[in-house]
């Protein structure tokens, strides 16, 4: 179409642009309207991480085009994080597993094509049932392992089969905090709501959730800064969180405990603690007072290399700028990173107890989830067979961890390789990959050794490449559930998760698969009438609502805002916060967090501390196959101090070898002033070798290869109640590749 400049100038607005240039600059809505396309908003819940942000999905002509946070949700408050919005790419990734498959190549391993062929769901169930029943018969039910997060439908199936081996990854993630908070405060685990927004002083021991763009934590952290909160970050690396702090202390890796103990010393000896709170809500103060005497700032200064007056200043600020919070989530210095991390988690509870910010605004908030009935009370089950064998991961020897239902995937693989205490023949695996785990090459060998492995997933992960039967899960945007507010809830609130679009492929929801599999195995008595929809309805009925009501809710949410009522009784033997942990004493652990060094220190051979971080566009190894996200962060980096790099002859962008006593990996160097000269930091989650992950395949290296695995005996010898896998307790050497 020919338009003169004069005519062009006369035209204005969208119509003119459209007339001139076709659809290039026209709003989709305008086009959609003309074409009579359907546009709708569906309320659902993000399941990328366990946070549970309620989201609004914009669907046009049957296609999801945009995701936003639900403004009435306590967690997301109208905003999603980078991972949440990326779920669109995940949903529509053509690499997704589209139907059940079986392996036709008996060979297994890295680089081996499984030669999967498509099968029906019926054939998949029949094969799994036949195999599982065969192993159960021949080798006992304990020869079948479940590798997945605790989930009530799957836990019922495991119990019905009679296997004690329900294994999960948590001792590489947060069991240190889980066990400590359980023993001293909650009776169950770590609380996930932190009221940063109302805090006046935020102290991080390696916590970097803003650097991971964790939605609720970042929003609340920045809100606190807006209101004038002071922030101190202890971290060997200058993280995005440190970049917002008033003070960055590049603490020596694994010495955070000494710093925390000296803070307790200052707060007690200088009478800076909240006497009322300590008297009313804690026990064990006198024991702490005696115990803490030797841990002076001068003592800690020698260990941490932080000046004593800095430690004293931080302690004073922490105790006087009220309310003060120790920021912590997972995999920070109090996560299972160092041999002394569980002790640091305990010292953090003591610090918060002394300043009175446990279940108080501006502090760590106890769970306020709606009270849903258990699966057993909704669908009573016949008696379960009593497991005849102990768990292969050795968790019974860690009774406080056993209580949490979390597991130890990292000792499981050794048990499989050694065939001790008995052989594991088969596994049902969901959302666990071979990444992240210490000594990942051995883990691959262990999984290869299984005779029959069933893997449920969305993406064709490395675990899928080792599977005999593959079952495709719904993507969360295709599934249904009801979700309490996991990572931030000041009052009970429920969000509805509902299909945004019809399932794209021949996938099924996990909670439907499990009962179907149970029935196929002849365990139908345990799954009589059991259905996800029926269970959700019973849960909603228990809180006085229904699915119908929730579906009609204008914002997809249930639960009125309620004023915050602070907890007066805690779930411990004394009903108080146990600064001196009687549960630890009872089970033979240190009842107070006495100083203990991290396990491995720099040597001539391995002179550098090793820490890890995770880029915000991924969640561990998940989301790496998303086209745009991997373009933004195409490989993992080794952060190295400018001076250290100079000594090693390494320039920014050079490839370097990072070598530990067990393995070496090649990664790109990122030379920076923002890290201790004696420390390197490597990004986690890279090194995919599954060719099914076409975008992530071959990008970067897996730092899990560098981490030595620990045996159950080593964990027992450490007398650590959490089976901490000590993910950063190693040293490395670095040289130009």
């Amino acid at each position, binding site marked *: 179409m020919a338009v003169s400049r004069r005519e062009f100038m006369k035209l204005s607005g969208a119509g003119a642009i459209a007339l001139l240039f*076709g659809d290039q600059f026209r*709003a989709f*809505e305008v086009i959609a309207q003309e074409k009579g396309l359907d546009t709708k908003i569906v309320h659902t819940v993000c399941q990328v991480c366990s946070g549970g942000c309620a989201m609004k999905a914009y669907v046009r002509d049957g296609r999801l085009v945009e995701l936003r946070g639900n403004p009435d949700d306590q967690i997301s408050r109208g905003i999603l*994080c*980078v991972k949440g919005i*990326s779920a669109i790419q995940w949903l529509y990734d053509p690499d997704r597993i589209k139907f059940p498959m079986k392996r036709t190549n008996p060979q297994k391993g890295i680089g081996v094509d499984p030669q999967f062929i498509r099968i029906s769901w019926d054939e998949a169930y029949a094969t799994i049932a036949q195999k599982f029943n065969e192993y159960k018969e021949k080798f006992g039910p304990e020869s079948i392992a479940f590798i997945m997060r605790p989930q009530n439908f799957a836990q019922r199936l495991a119990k019905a089969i009679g296997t004690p081996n329900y294994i999960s990854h948590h001792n590489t993630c947060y069991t240190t905090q889980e066990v400590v908070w359980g023993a001293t405060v909650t009776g169950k685990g770590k609380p996930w709501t932190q009221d940063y927004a109302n805090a006046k002083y935020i102290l991080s021991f390696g916590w970097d959730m803003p650097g991971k763009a*964790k939605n609720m934590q970042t929003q609340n952290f*920045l809100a606190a800064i807006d209101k004038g909160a002071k922030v101190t970050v202890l971290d060997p690396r200058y993280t995005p969180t440190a970049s917002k702090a008033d003070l960055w202390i590049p603490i020596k890796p694994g010495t955070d405990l000494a710093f925390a103990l000296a803070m307790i010393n200052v707060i007690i000896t200088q009478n800076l603690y909240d006497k009322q709170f300590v008297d009313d809500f804690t026990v064990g103060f006198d024991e702490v007072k005696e115990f803490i005497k030797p841990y002076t700032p001068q003592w800690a200064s020698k260990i941490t290399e932080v000046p004593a007056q800095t430690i004293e200043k931080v302690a004073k600020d922490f105790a006087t700028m009220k309310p003060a919070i120790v920021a912590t989530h997972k995999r920070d210095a109090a996560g299972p990173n160092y041999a002394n991390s569980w002790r640091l988690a305990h010292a953090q509870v003591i610090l918060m107890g002394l300043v009175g910010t446990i279940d108080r605004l501006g502090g760590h908030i106890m769970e306020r989830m709606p009270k849903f009935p258990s699966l057993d009370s909704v669908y009573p089950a016949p008696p379960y067979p009593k497991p005849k064998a102990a768990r292969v991961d050795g968790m019974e020897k860690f009774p406080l961890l056993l209580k949490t239902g979390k597991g130890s995937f990292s000792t499981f693989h050794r048990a499989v390789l050694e065939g001790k205490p008995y052989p594991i023949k088969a596994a049902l695996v969901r959302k666990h990959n071979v990444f992240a785990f210490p000594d990942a090459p051995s883990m691959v060998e262990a999984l290869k050794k299984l005779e029959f492995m069933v893997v449920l997933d969305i993406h064709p992960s490395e675990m899928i490449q080792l599977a005999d039967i593959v079952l495709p899960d719904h993507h969360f945007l295709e599934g249904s559930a009801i979700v309490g507010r996991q990572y931030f809830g000041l009052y009970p609130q429920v969000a509805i998760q509902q299909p945004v679009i019809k399932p794209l492929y021949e996938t099924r929801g996990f909670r439907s698969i499990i009962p179907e599999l149970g029935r196929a195995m002849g365990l139908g008595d345990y799954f009589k009438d059991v259905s996800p929809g029926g269970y959700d309805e019973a849960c909603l009925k228990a809180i006085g609502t229904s699915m119908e009501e929730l579906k009609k809710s204008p914002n997809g949410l249930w639960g009125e805002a309620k004023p915050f009522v602070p907890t007066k009784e805690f779930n411990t033997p004394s009903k108080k916060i146990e600064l001196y942990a009687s549960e630890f004493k009872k089970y033979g652990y240190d009842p107070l967090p006495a100083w203990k060094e991290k396990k491995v220190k720099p040597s001539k051979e391995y002179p550098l501390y090793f820490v890890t971080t995770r880029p915000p566009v991924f969640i561990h190894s998940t989301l790496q196959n998303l*086209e745009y996200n991997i373009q*933004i962060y195409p490989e993992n980096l080794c952060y190295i101090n400018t001076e250290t790099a100079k000594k090693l002859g390494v320039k920014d962008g050079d490839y370097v070898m990072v070598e530990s006593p067990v393995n070496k990996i090649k990664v790109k160097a990122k030379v920076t002033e923002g890290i201790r000269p004696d420390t390197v930091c490597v990004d986690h989650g890279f090194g995919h070798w599954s060719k099914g992950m076409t975008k992530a395949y071959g990008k970067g290296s897996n730092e899990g290869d560098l981490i030595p695995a620990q045996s159950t005996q080593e964990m027992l010898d450490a007398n650590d109640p959490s089976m901490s896998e000590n993910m950063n307790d190693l040293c490395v050497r670095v040289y130009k590749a």
Partner: protein
Amino acid sequence: MAKRYAMVIDLRRCVGCNACTVACKQEWPDKIPPGEFRTKIKEIESGKYPNVKMVYRRTACMHCADAPCVKACPVEPIKASRKTPEGITIVDEKLCIQCGACVEACPYKVRYLNTDNKINDKADSCNFCYPRLQKGEKPACTINCVGKVFTFGEINDPEVQKKLKLAKPLKPEFKTKPSVYYIPFGTRKWDTI
């Protein structure tokens, strides 16, 4: 009178997560080729260990009133690189002759020439999500930001005006009158191109 838009980016609040980058790529799947970006976070480190400082800066087309890319565009009579009545800089892919003059001319280096002819083999840069603006929506990058870094709207909007008081353009010495402004993070270095 056509609307005039401004964007204010608060560098104090950005954590560098690149949610804006992902949102942009998802909004324009058919326009931005692999490895290219209309917007991206630039990490600007300054100082010496341990007194290091960092600024994360969302960087994209500045939508300059006196846009060098428009001046450089040789296409006549209607330029391929031009301003809309709202002051937004666009590339008209129907007219673009792939000469690359605009890419060369941009002092902020935020335009690229796509050589991948599978998708949109023309010059390309941010257009403030012009189609979204038509239906009263904001650019895709501004919607989901955990740092609430963005303020976007008509230049006379009180919220925009409030933020503009704290903000300044990147490299004002280029004298191109950008529509994108930044609130500096204290005295930290933030203006690296």
